[in-house]
């Protein structure tokens, strides 16, 4: 019964951790992308002839801003499906 309690505790906290990782990561990434795209729209409105070049840069920066968030999602998936913290109890 003790072991089951430990297991439940680890899994519950891991679940909360996964939620925080993905949630806060998404928050940061979306705000960052929103700021960048608002600047792009401003720039495009001022100088429409630069739109193709700016658009290429926008996509590049989109990928760079998303990077930390996607890494956090990868780590969260690791915890969701192959939780290394369970090794302390399952043994």
């Amino acid at each position, binding site marked *: 019964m003790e072991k089951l309690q430990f297991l439940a505790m680890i899994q519950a906290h891991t679940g909360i951790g996964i939620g925080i990782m993905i949630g806060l990561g998404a928050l940061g990434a979306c705000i960052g992308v929103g700021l960048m795209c608002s600047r792009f729209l401003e720039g495009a409105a001022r100088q429409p002839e630069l739109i193709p070049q700016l658009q290429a840069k926008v996509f590049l920066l989109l*990928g760079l801003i*998303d990077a930390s968030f996607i890494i956090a*999602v990868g780590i969260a998936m690791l915890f969701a499906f192959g939780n290394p913290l369970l090794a302390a109890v399952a043994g």
Partner: protein
Amino acid sequence: MSAEHALTPTGYIQHHLSFLVKTGETPFWNYHLDTIVTSAILGILTFGFLHLVVRGATAGVPSKRQAAVELIVDFVNEQARSIFHGDIRFVAPLALTVFVWVFLMNAMDFLPIDLMAELVYKPLGLEYWRSVPTADVNTTFALALSVWVLMIFFAIKVKGVGGFIHELFCAPFGGNPVLWPFNFVFNLVEYISKPLSHSLRLYGNIYAGEIIFMLLGLWAATGVAGTIFGGILSAGWAIFHILIVGLQAFIFMMLTIVYIAMAQEGH
């Protein structure tokens, strides 16, 4: 399905996330046979195709294949020239290699997950086979570390070993010996974070994409409503993933060019 993974959702996902590991004497020498074979086959196909098209190229009206290859080569050349104002005779072909190869490796994610079971398990009896090489962190680290080694090589080639060490300790804060530790730590962080972020960005995007495909597919196992919604969301995610596959290859290529250009220009 192997005996260790029960037919539960978690077991299904864990089965599909396992590599075909060939063990060596110590765990360091384990390698993922599926990743190596898939990336080798894709490399041979891509560069063989490009080589054949280039060999049969005409200066007159181009065939459709030649026009397509010219499109890609021009695109990469433009990007390299806009970023790096020196000699691009090495960087541009490197960027082309990285772009086309990474794009095709990412594109293996379009194949259905259980297609590999048909192609590999039934005829050959192999238990595991992951078809997307860039969803293996080893592949992306191999590519990023190669670019890192090239970055250091070009820095030493342009500045000399003495100049490289001087810049390691004196940029960006100044040449005063008091500042040497701070400069060194600054440069160390930069040199470590570049390959790390370069590789993990590509790995994370493709790996997360695969997992979401699997999860959406599993939703269909819960019943009719799950199948309908899972199908709609899978279609939406697949369309978004087409953008991500191309975008991540483009970003990997651009960062390759930027890192090597920065190494050749100095601070």
